[in-house]
């Protein structure tokens, strides 16, 4: 039984984030792996020692602070899971939680988990963009809707071909270290990107899953259309920012 932990599904629920877990769970089932989604939030006891996968989605700035403060108090079990190589996926501003700090728009600094050395600073404007990113040989698509910039990322996850990066004009997006994947892409990323779903499924299954085993015809077609439409937009728009 593979346990897929969805942390703070009630606080961090802004962009249909739960769909990522639904997709992963279905893919694992199709590939023949028994699994269950386990939800944990503020009032629950946190123990990730039996986790096969950990996920946190996007939330409003105020709720991200609550979740982050709570996660900080449960840092041990989270960090141990990361160290054991449990695949962890953080999307949207959940990414910011593992950095050193998040400074809110009033200038108050909130301590992060410190698993990575980057720092996030929220502003008063929303930064919104469609995205095409390169991930190894693959291209992925998605969307960013955030109010922060992240600086000091040592190991980015994606290279941005179209859209916003971690900060300013940067062409790097997200953070990756071992099996920890963090990105500001929302979307939900595992619905939109069959290749990324395949990777997460393989990591959770601890086996090389074949694309055909989990193929969803409609998800594939959606990805192809999105990539071609966004590529066309990227060609016509000289600069990437909307």
């Amino acid at each position, binding site marked *: 039984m593979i346990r897929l932990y969805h942390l703070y599904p*009630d606080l961090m629920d802004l962009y*249909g984030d739960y769909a990522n877990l639904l997709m992963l769970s279905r893919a694992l089932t199709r590939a023949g792996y028994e699994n269950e989604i386990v939800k944990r939030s503020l009032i629950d006891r946190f123990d990730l020692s039996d986790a096969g996968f950990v996920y946190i989605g996007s939330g*409003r700035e105020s709720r991200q602070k609550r979740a982050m403060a709570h996660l900080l108090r449960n840092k041990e079990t989270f960090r141990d899971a990361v160290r054991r190589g449990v695949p962890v996926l953080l999307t949207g501003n959940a990414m910011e939680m593992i950095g050193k700090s998040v400074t809110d728009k009033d200038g108050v600094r909130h301590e992060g988990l410190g698993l990575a050395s980057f720092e996030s600073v929220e502003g008063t404007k929303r930064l919104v963009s*469609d995205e095409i990113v390169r991930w190894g040989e693959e291209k992925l698509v998605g*969307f960013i*809707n955030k109010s922060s910039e992240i600086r000091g990322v040592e190991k980015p996850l994606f290279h941005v071909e179209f859209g916003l990066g971690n900060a300013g004009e940067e062409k790097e997006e997200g953070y990756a270290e071992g099996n920890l994947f963090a990105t500001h892409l*929302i979307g939900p990323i595992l619905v*939109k990107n069959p290749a990324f779903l395949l990777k997460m499924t393989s990591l959770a299954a601890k086996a090389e899953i074949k694309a055909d085993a989990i193929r969803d015809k409609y998800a594939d077609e959606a990805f192809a259309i999105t990539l071609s*439409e966004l590529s*066309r937009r990227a060609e016509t728009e000289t600069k990437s920012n909307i």
Partner: protein
Amino acid sequence: MRKLLAILLAKAGRFVGKLVGKGSSKPGYYALKADPKILQKIKLPPYVIAVSGSNGKTSTVEMIAKILTDAGLRVAYNKEGSNQIEGVATLILGECTLSGRMKSDVLLIESDERFARYTFSHFKPTHFVVTNLYRDQLTRNGHPEWVFDALAEGVKPAGKLILNADDPLVSLFAEGRENTVWFGCGKLEGLSPENDSVYDDGRFCPRCGERMRYDYRVYNHVGAYFCPVCGYRRQKPAYELRKIDLAAGSLTVASREGSFEIPMENPSVYSAYNILVAFAAASEAGVPGEKIARSLRDFASRMGRIVSFTLGDHEGKLLTSKHENSISYDQSIAVAASDPEDVSVLVIVDAVSRKYFTSETSWFWDIDFEKLASPHVRHIVLAGTHYGELMVRFSFTGIPEERIAAVRSIEEAAELLKSYDTKKIYTITCFSDKDKFLNLVERK
């Protein structure tokens, strides 16, 4: 001199605009260029009513305008799409004398949540109505709390607030001030404290952040809330829905003047709230309840949100929703799902944005498509550029796969609908996509 120049510019612009058949906000734009403080120099009418919120602004404003006009008042109000400062300036200057006095009795403004603070830095509304705050075009607006912060500045200078007592976030505008009147829905039969939507924006208290509870919910986070930690709770409304009869298409509003029964053109709890808001605002502007009820009785929506059509030997209704606004979709779904006859449902998401292709479809996962699972919804067709992701979304609704078809082409979708023996069709889509379908059918 600048003031006169600005007024003349606005009037000339409006005249030319009318000649070429274009109503735009350009006249206001030029007037503000000529005199940035022009709006502060205009003598406004005794009632300046602002209406803002995520949903229902336009139809609410239309209703208020109708009631006040019926009551013999001269009402100046802005039409959809012109609710930024330039549009408001066009409206005000077009309705004022050369000496700068507005000729109307009431200035009624539909105000975009994000722009209210700019508009009302120029002049103060006497009444500010906030309908509701929920997830609406997150790409443009950010999330509800983000909108709250933006709107708060615009609401602040208003003389009196007319607020939704059932929306915990909206009610927060009353904190630390006086002169607020509330509207809300009473504890109607069948309402429970449970949330039956895909997501729950009423989980946490907007004041202290702790877990909130409900005596009952009307939909999603809208209901009789209370926070056991800080004591924040629903205020007693002066205007209350006492009965909503969806089958008969009527509702009852109670105010200090008594109870009034009002019919609904498109029966749903959402339109019941819109009517309630209009009732409250008109009542606060001094119109007697009986007159309001009479006006609302013959109010028919001029917005064309529901369009009847025929497709071959099929009869259909197009229910206009708003992309990136899950609750507007939920409203349309409720109409289709509550039809007792066998129906086919077509959902079209072709262009999320009119400007360019965008891949922001996270809002699909906020819509209660699950409610289309009832067996009399015999066929579901998903169409438009985003048919693939719609299909993935539907694959998690529990609706049997054989009932669902997904095709990119809207023409092909129309052909499919024609081939079914189900004779009644509901088409659910956004106003930006609706003509792509209406061009294929006979409008009635």
